[in-house]
């Protein structure tokens, strides 16, 4: 004999609760947090470097770098002028709220205005794990192909902005921008999209303006 107990609870609710706690810590410190997600090689670290360059020291920036191993990315962010904390996930394919919680404890949030979280390079797993940042951003890149929204729809669902990196390579690879954008529009209607090239710098200004506008709006509250 058994009885049925109704649960109807979202899996990962424990992660989501901790993500809310992370959000409160960021809000208390008036720090605007962004979670940058992408496949390996799409250009997350390059985007962060170029963003730090464009910001030109106007804001104090912290970077949390999630990686399976090594501190190469955190070192690059530190070299570009941010205070960086490396989180080695020990084989885990994504950052979760617990890992960010630990990283935040190592950071002096009172002396930061912007926190950039570089997630582990992966187009599947990070989407399910809320971190508590204010915005989640997906970085796609032209050489990955125009079919990514169709192959990894989950990743495109929960983000608030999309960067399309390496647009300078468009003449050399098969990438139907219209087809790509149609898929994105279905999965995430009205998603703010920033085609750019970290190599040439084209399009960076609009992306950085988006970031700074949100940052300024948060700090004005």
């Amino acid at each position, binding site marked *: 004999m058994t009885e049925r107990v109704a649960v109807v609870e979202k899996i990962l609710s424990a*992660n989501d609760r901790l993500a809310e706690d992370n959000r409160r810590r960021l809000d208390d410190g008036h720090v605007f947090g962004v979670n940058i997600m992408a496949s390996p090689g799409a250009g997350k670290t390059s985007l962060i470097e170029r963003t730090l360059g464009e910001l030109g020291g106007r804001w104090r920036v912290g970077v949390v770098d999630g990686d399976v191993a090594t501190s190469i990315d955190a070192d690059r962010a530190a070299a570009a002028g941010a205070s960086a904390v490396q989180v080695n996930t020990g084989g885990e394919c*994504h950052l979760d709220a617990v890992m960010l919680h630990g990283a935040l404890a190592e950071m002096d949030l009172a002396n930061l205005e912007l926190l950039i979280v570089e997630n582990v390079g992966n187009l599947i*797993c990070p989407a399910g794990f809320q971190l508590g940042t204010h915005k989640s951003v997906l970085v796609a890149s032209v050489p990955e192909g125009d079919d990514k929204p169709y192959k990894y729809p989950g990743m495109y669902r929960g983000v608030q902005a999309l960067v399309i990196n390496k647009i300078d390579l468009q003449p050399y690879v098969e990438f139907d921008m219209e087809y790509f954008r149609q898929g994105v*529009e279905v*999965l995430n209607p009205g998603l703010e999209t920033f085609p750019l090239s970290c190599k040439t710098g084209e399009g960076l200004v609009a992306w950085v303006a988006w970031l700074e506008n949100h940052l300024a709006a948060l700090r004005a509250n």
Partner: protein
Amino acid sequence: MHELPVTESILEMVQRHAREANATRVTDLYLVMGQLSSLVDDSIQFYWDIISEGTLAEGAQLHFERVPGELFCLDCGSRYVMADTTFACPSCHGLHVQVVAGDEFRLDAIDVQTPEDQEQIEGEAVV
């Protein structure tokens, strides 16, 4: 790979709800997973068998309800399963469509045994 933390999260939820129900054993779990959640049933089952050992949910049966990604055409009202290479409406070929199913990612219910159930079973065995 992320099925391990997902499975740990499921175990935490199961134990919490089982305690609230005063259960002595959990026999079945009913999970609903949308296609867009990108989780692999077999991996969850694999991790479950390991991490549920020694808990009151050890050996519980996992039941997966897979929900396909579905789209709804805002122009002609068709509802259809998401294809691999296009999201266009198969009826009117339009792209004015929205996702209406596939994001699910939840534990719906568990079957439990309570001390009263146990007494009943033992009572029946005596008869």
